[in-house]
């Protein structure tokens, strides 16, 4: 193999390795872009700073609709206690979902929230949510699951209706190691 061919080979292999890395780099990159733009309806977690910034306009009303579904392999029933609610942007509210395990064994579920329309999702923050941790239901057990949220007061005019939707996934068949890692999930959500 002559020197130049060797050089070309090395450079090409470098491109291959770099592009392989780039493929994986798309994963965090995608999350960052979704966080910034609110794409995919990814919602935020409210903190003190956000709560302190709110300017409440008592005359403005926004409707929040609630939706709940279960992924096909989760033997639960899951629905919102109330299907919609009038809220004032900037104020804190609590809504409830009701989940029941209809299987004859213990099942662990993980809820994943999403807000439509996408543009609204970055203005929707939760302070307390059953989706922050994995939920365990005994056979036949029914549980009320609260979510405390705030629609930020800087929500653009023109958005009058938001839909908060949860999908519950089965996490029981995961390894024991992962069951303890449930808490890192909500950071990405």
């Amino acid at each position, binding site marked *: *193999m*002559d020197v*130049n*061919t060797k050089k*070309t*080979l090395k450079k*090409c*292999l470098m*491109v*291959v*390795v770099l*592009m*392989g890395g*780039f*493929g*994986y780099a*798309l*994963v965090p990159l*995608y999350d960052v872009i*979704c966080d910034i*733009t609110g*794409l*995919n309806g990814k919602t935020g977690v409210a903190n003190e700073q956000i709560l302190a910034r709110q300017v409440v306009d008592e005359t403005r009303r926004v409707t929040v609709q609630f939706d709940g579904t279960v*992924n096909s392999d989760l033997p639960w029933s899951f629905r919102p206690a109330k299907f919609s609610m009038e809220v004032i942007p900037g104020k804190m509210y609590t809504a409830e979902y009701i989940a029941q395990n209809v299987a004859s064994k213990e099942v662990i579920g*993980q809820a*994943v929230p999403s807000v439509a329309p*996408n*543009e609204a999702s970055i203005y929707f923050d939760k302070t307390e949510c059953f989706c922050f941790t994995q939920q365990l239901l005994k056979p036949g057990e029914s549980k009320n699951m609260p979510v405390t949220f705030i629609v930020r007061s800087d929500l653009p005019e023109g958005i009058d209706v938001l839909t908060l939707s949860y*999908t519950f*996934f*089965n*996490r029981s068949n*995961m*390894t024991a190691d*992962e069951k303890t890692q449930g808490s*890192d*999930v*909500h*950071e*990405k*959500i």
Partner: protein
Amino acid sequence: MGHDSHDHKPKGFVNRWLMTTNHKDIGTLYLVFAFAMFITGGAMAMIIRLELFQPGLQFVEPDFFNQMTTMHALIMVFGAVMPAFVGLANWMIPMMIGAPDMALPRMNNWSFWILPFAFALLGSTLFMDGGAPAGGWTMYPPLVLQGGKNVAYLVFAVHLMGISSIMGAINVIATIMNMRAPNVGYLNMPLFVWTWLITAFLLIAVMPVLAGAVTMLLTDRYFGTSFFNAAGGGDPVLFQHIFWFFGHPEVYIMILPSFGVVSEIIPTFARKPLFGYVSMVYATAGIAFLSFIVWAHHMFSVGMPLGGELYFMYATMMIAVPTGVKIFNWVATMWKGAMTFETPMLFSLAFVVLFTIGGFSGVMMALAPVDLQYHDTYFIVAHFHYVLVPGAIFAIIAAAYYWLPKWSGHMYSERLGKIHFWWSTISVNVLFFPQHFLGLAGMPRRIPDYSTQFAEFNMMSSIGGFAFGLAQVFFIYIVVKTVRGGKKAEANAWGDAKGLEWTVPSPAPHHTFDEFGPVDLKKMAHGEVH
């Protein structure tokens, strides 16, 4: 086995084919393999068209039908079209630039011999519990992950195909950059060599991304990661982004070498130099660049913000500009040329016309608002089959007729060639044109059964399909007959064709351009002579 004289080929199957490092033999292996895969994938297409001949379920189970659509696509893309072009590159590139062989001959052998194993892995899934992958060749999760035992086989097969194409591409790059005869500059190179150089760069840039995407599928399925699993904080749409970041350049990987082939053939039979050689090179590079920044036009319906839809729409429409440059250059090459219509020329002309139809339906689907109607219907099926069958496949067939005299030393029968051409061209249009109407009327793709109002066009399409399939069996007969005997081909089989490959005898000796030295630039195909 020593090489006593230049024309002594190694004796015995193992030495000649299994251990070969000769670019011509490896080229032949690639072409034969690609043809075998073309027939295999074609047989699957016949099953699909048979089931769709009439509404209702007649012949196969829906799950098997889905396995057929998935396997047909994987085999045609990775087994037929891509290896066929690598085979052409192996045969022609060294001879076109005055090089004795490929730069990395042992790697060349390896990159070919991986392929049979890759497709054995993939094909073996057909005989497993749960059958072959059935979630579509795009392998979207979560559907593909529900595929039973085949997931791991699918992933490893794709890995092997990726390794093979990456090695093939590196070989092409190393050969073109380092092995050109000393007086052959980049702008003296034939366009086939240019398009392949650019294709090879696309390959090494995007095959690793595909490898990454399928590896994520593998770990999601078997090792508990959550790249695409919403329950674990992942997102299935992420896969579509990664896949199409590979997938869109991939479609140009399959079409750029066709542009190269047609750019060799049209000047020969129009008896004029290629019009706008340099603009052809820039247009190819432009298309390659654009291919990296338009991927999400495959995903207009997943829910992108308006800004994203607009950007991907305009960027995609921009591709029509360099592509238009190429089409007009081919037409200008023929303008006032002393044209004759031998079989390779006929296939090239059909390529120009029919590829353009596929290009137009592509522009239609680039429009985000209307794409919402076309998405996942037979319209997209018609579109990509127009660019791949009378596009890429016709170019490969044209190349086979054009260079068969050089490879085999015999002229094919022009009469049989013309029959093959008309048979293929008419049937391919009967096969795919009605699918445009089916798509516009709303027939979804990847379904074994359909509503009765789609019956006539489906029956028409199936009849065209059977005829087209049969025409390719006829092509095997023509090729075998030509290889076995026939009129001796001259060194310059087409009389006054330009290109260094026509300066060596037909059939091309086992070793050509053994002595590294300057070549006669006036004999080069159509590069600028500075």
